């Protein structure tokens, strides 16, 4: 430590130090006089390589480099929710106060506001034995999130001293803990955790509860489990970000971590303004009260983009340990993979597929494996669900990031360009997408919605697949020449596509649809299908039925039936029966 380490070489975000032994792998360092944040990513006898999380313009050789002695960490404590951070957990609002509308380099700001006081209730007593993960203090972080301060996972011992209940800052000592060796540890409201190491859990539980999103195509056809991982691949303009926004707004997780990784600045400002206006239907509080945003836009330094994903997932794990269900949206993991590629290129590593480093798959699997429904070390139950957007180059799903992501996620919501061109949103293609959670989640659906929900879903999927096959013929010869039973499939599939799968995010009722309504919609559509099928088999021409306008009527029922008046669906069933009885009578 005695001899000063100085910069030797600079190449973009990569800085090298010559002849030093003072750094360890993944250690966090301050680079140069302006104290830019960096991380050690390579060590040889001659050179230590550092990636810098900020622009390196203006750096000079011989400027000092100071090691922090610890790996890249985040600060975990109250004040995370309802905040917006950059990729290395610096609050952007504090940076704005400090350096104005443009982000200056070397802005050192505290991750959590150290001046703010929190209304702390201490939940342990002097003399109590505490194991790792035990909650020792609570405070309301926002109006809907109760923050629980937990003993760090690597610590246990006896409580020596406790502070008074009441107003405390994050740095105040709340309890003093004496471990087995007799060393006293002062615990405040926050703890630090290295971002690249998963926080430990007691055990992982099999997925059994769905993440309810209110999006019909997802909840019904391709459900995601709490603690699961989903990939949303799609070319530009297919609605990845819209899908992510919809999920962040409406899914039934307790906490949302939204990572804008290398995406557009205007999108982040849209999330900021929209989420503060939107009211969460469950709690009647603004959406921001349960959301934390990590914004590393595409023009912010590339190395911090690589870190932002890890920062996000570590925050998510921390809240999971408190017993919350957390959903993390990563938009987009391709940008993160490209950041890996860029750094790897600067290190002159041997590239594998398309210039991506050979360790891309292992990094992706490490990330997605941090999702899970878990029993935590303090015996609470929580989950981290990952929804990762993938932006394949040239919308070609065979590229390495999409292919490798597919291996490690069990839900695949493929966004389709031609659907997006028709402005059919969500543009999730029902033929190429899949969910492997059906068998895990079916017991839940049967218990909560009845066995018929599963049956309806199967029938809907069958009709859509049948239509897909027929469409190949239709493309060649037109639909007019098809026999009536096949015309019926095409007509019903149209109703399903337009009336059910297509969902309007800007319509007050249609933007979030409760599962019960989804089920009833399927019921009505299938009822019409079955009644028509009976008549078609009795050789009554389908044109006589479609002229009644029932098919068109069903395509609009998503708008016509408000979410709180589900009894109106009975009218549809009755009307269908009436019309059909009259057709049969007149025949």
């Amino acid at each position: 430590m005695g001899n000063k380490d100085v910069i030797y070489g600079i190449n973009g975000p990569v800085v090298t130090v010559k002849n030093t032994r003072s750094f360890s792998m993944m250690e966090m360092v301050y680079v140069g006089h302006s104290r830019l944040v960096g991380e050690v990513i390579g060590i040889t006898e001659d050179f230590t390589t550092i990636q810098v999380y900020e622009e390196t313009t203006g750096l000079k050789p011989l400027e000092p480099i100071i090691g922090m002695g610890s790996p890249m960490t985040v600060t975990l404590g109250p004040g995370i929710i309802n905040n917006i951070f950059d990729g290395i957990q610096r609050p952007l609002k504090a940076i704005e106060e400090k350096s104005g509308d443009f982000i200056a380099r070397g802005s050192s700001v505290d991750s959590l506001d150290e001046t703010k006081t929190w209304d702390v209730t201490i939940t342990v007593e002097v003399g109590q034995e505490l194991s790792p993960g035990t909650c020792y203090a609570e405070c309301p972080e926002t109006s809907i999130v109760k923050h629980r301060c937990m003993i760090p996972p690597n610590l246990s011992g006896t409580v020596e001293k406790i502070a008074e209940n009441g107003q405390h800052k994050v740095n105040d000592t709340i309890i003093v803990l004496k471990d087995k060796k007799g060393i006293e540890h002062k615990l405040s409201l926050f703890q630090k955790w290295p971002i690249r190491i998963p926080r430990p859990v007691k055990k992982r539980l099999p997925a059994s509860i769905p993440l309810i999103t209110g999006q019909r195509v997802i909840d019904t056809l391709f459900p995601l489990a709490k603690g699961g991982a989903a990939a949303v691949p799609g070319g530009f303009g297919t609605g990845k970000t819209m899908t992510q926004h919809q999920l962040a707004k409406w899914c039934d997780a307790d906490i949302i971590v939204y990572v804008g990784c290398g995406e557009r600045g205007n999108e982040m400002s849209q999330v900021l303004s929209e989420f503060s206006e939107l009211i969460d239907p469950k709690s009647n509080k603004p959406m921001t009260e349960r959301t934390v945003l990590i914004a590393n836009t595409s023009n912010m330094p590339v190395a911090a983009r690589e870190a932002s994903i890890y920062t996000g997932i570590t925050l998510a794990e921390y809240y999971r340990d408190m017993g919350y269900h957390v959903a993390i949206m990563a938009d987009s993991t391709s940008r993160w993979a490209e950041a890996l590629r860029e750094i790897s290129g600067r290190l002159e590593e041997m590239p594998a597929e398309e210039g991506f480093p050979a360790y891309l798959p292992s990094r992706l699997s490490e990330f997605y494996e941090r999702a899970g429904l878990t029993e935590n070390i303090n015996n609470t139950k929580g989950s981290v669900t990952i929804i990762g957007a993938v932006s394949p180059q040239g919308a070609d799903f065979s590229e390495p990031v999409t292919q490798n992501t597919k291996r490690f996620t069990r839900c695949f919501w493929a966004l389709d360009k031609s659907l997006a061109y028709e402005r059919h949103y969500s543009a999730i293609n029902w033929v190429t997408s899949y969910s492997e959670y059906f068998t895990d989640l079916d017991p839940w659906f049967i218990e909560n919605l009845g066995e018929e929900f599963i049956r309806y879903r199967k029938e809907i999927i069958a009709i859509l697949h049948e239509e897909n096959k027929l469409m190949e013929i239709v493309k060649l010869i037109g639909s007019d020449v098809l026999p009536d039973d096949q015309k019926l499939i095409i007509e019903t599939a149209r109703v399903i596509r337009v009336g059910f799968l297509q969902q309007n995010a800007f319509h007050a009722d249609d933007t979030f649809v409760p599962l019960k309504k989804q089920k009833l919609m399927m019921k009505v559509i299938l009822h019409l299908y079955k009644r028509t099928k009976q008549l078609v088999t009795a050789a009554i021409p389908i044109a006589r039925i479609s002229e009644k306008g029932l098919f068109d009527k069903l395509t609009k029922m998503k708008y016509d039936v408000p979410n709180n008046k589900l009894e109106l669906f009975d009218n549809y069933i009755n009307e269908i029966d009436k019309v059909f009885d009259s057709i049969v009578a007149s025949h």
Partner: protein
Amino acid sequence: MIIDYIGVKEISGSLIVIDDVEGASFEEVVEIRLENGETRQGRIVQIEGKRIVVQVFEGTRGIALNNTRTRLKGHSMEMPLSPEILGRVFDGAGRPMDGLGDIFPQKRLDINGTPINPVSREYPRNYINTGISSIDVLTTLIRGQKLPIFSGSGMKHNELAVQIARQAKISGNKKDKFAIVFAAMGVKNDVAEYFKKSFEDAGVLGRVVMFLNLSNDPVIERILTPRCALTTAEYLAFELGMHILVIMTDMTSYAEALREFSSSKGEIPGRKGYPGYLYSDLASLYERAGMIKGKSGSVTQIPILTMPNDDITHPVPDLTGYITEGQIVLGRDLEGSGIYPPVSILPSLSRLMKDGIGTGYTREDHGALANQLFASYAKVMDARSLASVIGEEELSPSAKRIIEFGKAFESKFINQGANEDRTIIQSLDLGWQLLSYLPREELDRVDDSVLDKYYREQKNKNNEEKC
């Protein structure tokens, strides 16, 4: 103390390597003097101890190992700025080339800029009326947006850009100051002349700042051109409170310059030989569009790029599409059938449109109408491909109506004169007029209440056509 370093160690492509340099900083500007008195500019792109690698903007022709004197300038690339730059013409590296002398700067700004803090950004909502139906109704341009034109060689992208620049009226305060920053990268001299003349004809030349790196200018300088232009735009917008429209053409040439530089530096290439950081690099340009809370100005970008071989999956359009907020795609089939502007509707998109249209901005039916036009036009494509197999005569009556709608949509709605300036209301009404070709049941993207108000089915359209 100013030190001249004599001679260079190595020359490769546009790069020179100099040894034993003290106190160089990353991205610092250097001045290189040749024996014949010529000076060139360069930028430090890599430092290894006392060895520096310098990128020479004007190229290394004539440089030998021992005939140069290099001097460090002590700062990174800067652009001198003052309100007087309006109406001036600069070369690709930001030096005046109109013979009107140097700029007396009020301010010098680093051309690389710094990222706008996402929390300081104002979410763009005010639409720009371009007077072009296909853009106003279907891919609405919003103040502070970056909306590129994806084109191909030989298509009318320049005409479209000029028409937008000429007709762009920003809704809201009419007294807002408006100016254009034009950056040409690797375009032909006549194209630059065309833009210049068009601005002159429109009487706006005094409000235009031009940066010209033409196709015979040094390639590496092209990397600076958009940065100089955007620094100027940011200065005019955020310091002087003006609304700036930045037109950058042609981004493909820019990316090629970047590729050339990258390969001479010996970097590992990504797709099609472009460097792995092409996305980050393009983002550092495009993300400089936007609005800032509490400031009245805005930067709106219309980059133009020609897709090599009309391939939208080529890395340059592909990565651009991932960064920008939508795209206007020009189609060769429309161009071929004489339609101007040849905007290919289906792949075109404006991401910011949804929040800048409708009640209070344009008209309440705008969103639904646009959706319906998209959906119906998508059906036209299906019907046409069916017709090409079985013949138009064999189509069902409803498919025939769709084809008819498609023809009218292209010839009346998309097609308009290069000087024709339609108001948004005219364009919307035209859209409804065309939808009337289709039966009401087929309009499944529109609420009944909107249909009641605007939709009038044509009962006797054959008679009407005769009239």
